């Protein structure tokens, strides 16, 4: 492993106030050179603010300092003076959650947009040199693809690595920069995460210093060398990871032991509320499943396995073949309105599709069934009241029911939207990635919400890339590979290992015969990731 090469970065007395709110209070810690240093904290702990301060996007209060050590030479800068240019000069390189990759452009062009084009006199691009340079960069970072290919050929993890290449391509040597990663894995499927983490490890072994923000504690436990924990803007400590477990980290982040909501067991004689047979839609190829009253069924699988297609098809968002029976009545496919009328509710994975950012919490909670508040006019008082009730019942942190959805943290937005779906007492609740990008506290709350709702009435089908979440939440899990159910796990059989070993079966044989299962994505996965 990387030897102690001293400190690459030291922060002292970093504070930032937003009006009366103290986002960062006198934070001081050091990051060692050539290490993967995880920055941990719940939503609102000050992580993002700290990163914005380092990037020079947000101006910190005067007084603190940032010290960079490159090849034994120290540079101390007042933290309040950082601008994006100065930050870049100090060697900070940032890769954010939403990777800005231009899918239609070639990989070489994507890299060139991060630094420069090889130009001939007159401004013509010298493509041969451009491709050669891109190839060198890709080789350095272990990305085995042709620079001439469009970036759309890359899988999600490879895109993240490409943006890392782009950020680091012009550093003099691996120790010269500090790579700051803001939740690089939150949108990645599990197999890709392992691949990305091993790439990061290789970079760190070459001497690259990496500051890594993540909500996914299991990944932190696997890949980090050191950790720094922030809570409410206060530095809680910086330490080597050692043998800390996910539970230890969660406790450090929240400040008290976290209650894990464990699986309830539904009764075998409960009525079947959702029965699906021979369902083919999108990537799903003939899926059969049954979910009983009070039960939470998990669908495990890698991206492109058809797990999300099943939810979308039941909800009527995707055209489908096969039958779907809700509480004894067959459901016609292809129309969202029909599915909703039968009591199906769906929360999609795409965060941009989960709500109305500029509208109030109350309106967001009522829009799905605005008809309920219509008495010849819209009863805004009743609407606001019910928004307030929702905020109170779910423990949402919002200024008021009139606050815009965008003013809430990600976890609280998610609570509002799940709460709004649950309040209509759905027969079948479909949730794709219920807690993606949400902190550990909100995560437990959201799990509790889903369980309470199902215990009262209805059933749920959950898709998650986070296998620990599946263990916590599900009574039963179906594992999908290449659009087909390959295994069923129940109760104590549901373990991360059992799911992972099933879902990573080589789908090659079936995959070649199923062109419907997003060939581009799978192709890219096999080519780059495997």
């Amino acid at each position: 492993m990387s030897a102690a090469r001293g400190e690459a970065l030291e922060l002292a007395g970093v504070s930032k106030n937003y009006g009366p709110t103290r986002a960062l209070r006198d934070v001081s810690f050091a990051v060692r050179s050539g290490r993967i240093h995880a920055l941990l904290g719940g939503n609102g702990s000050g992580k993002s603010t700290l990163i914005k301060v380092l990037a020079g996007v947000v101006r910190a209060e005067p007084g603190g300092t940032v010290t960079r050590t490159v090849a034994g030479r120290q540079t101390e800068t007042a933290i309040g003076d950082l601008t994006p240019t100065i930050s870049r000069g100090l060697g900070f390189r940032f890769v954010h959650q939403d990777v800005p990759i231009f899918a239609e452009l070639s990989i070489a062009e994507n890299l060139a947009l991060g630094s420069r084009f090889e130009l001939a006199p007159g401004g013509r691009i010298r493509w041969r040199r451009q491709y050669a340079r891109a190839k060198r960069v890709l080789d350095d970072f272990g990305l085995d693809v042709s620079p001439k290919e469009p970036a759309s050929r890359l899988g999600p993890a490879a895109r993240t690595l490409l943006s890392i290449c782009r950020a680091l391509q012009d550093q003099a040597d691996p120790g010269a920069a500090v790579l700051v990663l803001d939740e690089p894995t939150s949108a990645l499927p599990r197999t890709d995460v392992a691949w990305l983490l091993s790439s990061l490890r290789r970079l760190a072994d070459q001497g690259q210093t990496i500051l890594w923000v993540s909500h996914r504690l299991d990944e932190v436990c696997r890949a980090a060398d050191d950790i720094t924990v922030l809570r409410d803007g206060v530095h809680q400590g910086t330490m080597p990871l050692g043998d800390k477990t996910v539970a230890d980290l969660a406790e450090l982040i929240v400040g008290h032991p976290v209650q894990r909501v464990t699986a309830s067991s539904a009764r075998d004689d409960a009525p079947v509320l959702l029965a699906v047979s021979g369902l083919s839609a999108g990537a799903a190829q003939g899926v059969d499943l049954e979910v009983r009253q009070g039960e939470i069924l998990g669908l495990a699988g890698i991206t492109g396995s058809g797990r999300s297609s099943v939810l979308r098809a039941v909800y009527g968002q995707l055209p489908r073949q096969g039958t779907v029976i809700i509480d004894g009545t067959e459901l016609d496919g292809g129309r969202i309105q029909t599915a909703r009328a039968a009591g199906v509710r769906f929360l999609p994975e795409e965060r941009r599709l989960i709500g109305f950012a500029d509208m109030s919490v109350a309106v967001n909670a009522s829009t799905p069934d605005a008809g309920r508040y219509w008495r010849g006019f819209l009863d805004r008082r009743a609407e606001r009241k019910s928004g307030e009730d929702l905020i109170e019942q779910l423990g949402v942190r919002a200024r008021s029911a009139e606050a815009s959805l965008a003013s809430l943290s990600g976890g609280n937005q998610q609570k509002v939207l799940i709460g709004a779906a649950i309040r209509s007492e759905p027969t079948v609740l479909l949730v794709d990635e219920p807690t993606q990008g949400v902190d550990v506290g909100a995560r437990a709350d959201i799990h509790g919400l889903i369980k309470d709702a199902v215990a009262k009435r209805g059933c749920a089908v959950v898709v998650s890339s986070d296998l620990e979440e599946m263990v916590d939440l599900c009574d039963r899990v179906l594992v999908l590979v290449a659009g087909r159910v390959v295994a069923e796990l129940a109760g104590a059989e549901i373990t991360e290992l059992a799911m992972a070993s099933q879902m990573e079966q080589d789908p090659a044989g079936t995959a070649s015969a199923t062109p419907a299962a997003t060939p581009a994505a799978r192709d890219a996965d096999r080519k780059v990731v495997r």
Partner: protein
Amino acid sequence: MTGTADQEDRVTAGGQPETGQRWLGRRGFGRLRPGGRQWGGFAERWALFALFVIMLIIFSVTATGFDATQNLQVLVGSQTPMVVLAIAAMAPLVVGQFDLSVAAIAGTAGIAMVSAITRFHLPLGAGILIALVISALIGAFNGYLVAYLGLNAFIVTLGVSTVLQGVVQGYTGGSVLPGNGIGWLSNSLSGNVGIIPRGAFWFVPVALVAWYLLEQTPFGRHLRSIGSNAGAAQLLGIRTRSLTLSTFVVSGLLGGLTGILITAQSGSADPAVAAGGDLLSALAAAFLGASVFLPGLFNVAGTVLAIFFVAVLVDGLQFLGAQDWTSPVIDGAVLIGAIAVSSMLRRERIRR
């Protein structure tokens, strides 16, 4: 208080809206006001209205011959078609779409009505009906191309607008059609009932119905949700396509009504109306209206106020000696100023 959570993760989920309201801009102008949310919110809501009242007072005092009451009566009479046209232009804006063809539809409707009466000897009622049906069909055509075929509304409506101008030009040979037989329609727009100008009896019901539909029904709420995030609305089972189409039908219908009112006012159908000289004023009013009453959202009351605001401004300045050419300059400046202010307000809406 949400504390730092508020500051940090405000654009995580949902993020910036994908489609709708995009005409109000994405990038902000920084913070408008560092504090005083309550007072700031109130001031924001009423700023334009207060400005309107102040302007009336100033012009009454400084401009000799500018009598607020009498002037308002004349203004209401003359601006009636513009109010209807501005509401027409506003309807697709609510769902994040543009209709550049409203003025051309108005011109077409006027020609159609007069032509039905004078060339085909139909009664006035039938002429009105034909004009409205044609307008609604043109709107439905726009809406179909935009909502169901996914074509860019800007281009579609610009194209339709140009085609209509050509057709009107060809049909009339460029000459004004005298409006014989539209007598009672003309009378219904001129003069006063008591102190209320007759024009108000046309635009007030239109505005009230539009306001009711937009603010007081699930239909309006659904339109607003499409404007905020069309993808999310679709996933909630809201019929985004047919609702988007319906806004174009509304804008077509109201565009047609505008044409009928303009014809009634002038006593003849002028093919020049189809050239779209009034389009910019209508759009400017819709955007300026989005800065008042419900700041950051297109709204009917704001749009109506905005029409009168600009009309009084132009009128007052001309009383003070400004030339005719100031009118388009003011319209253009108001459009840009309004879009800037409403973008800022929209940014603020998202922040809190």
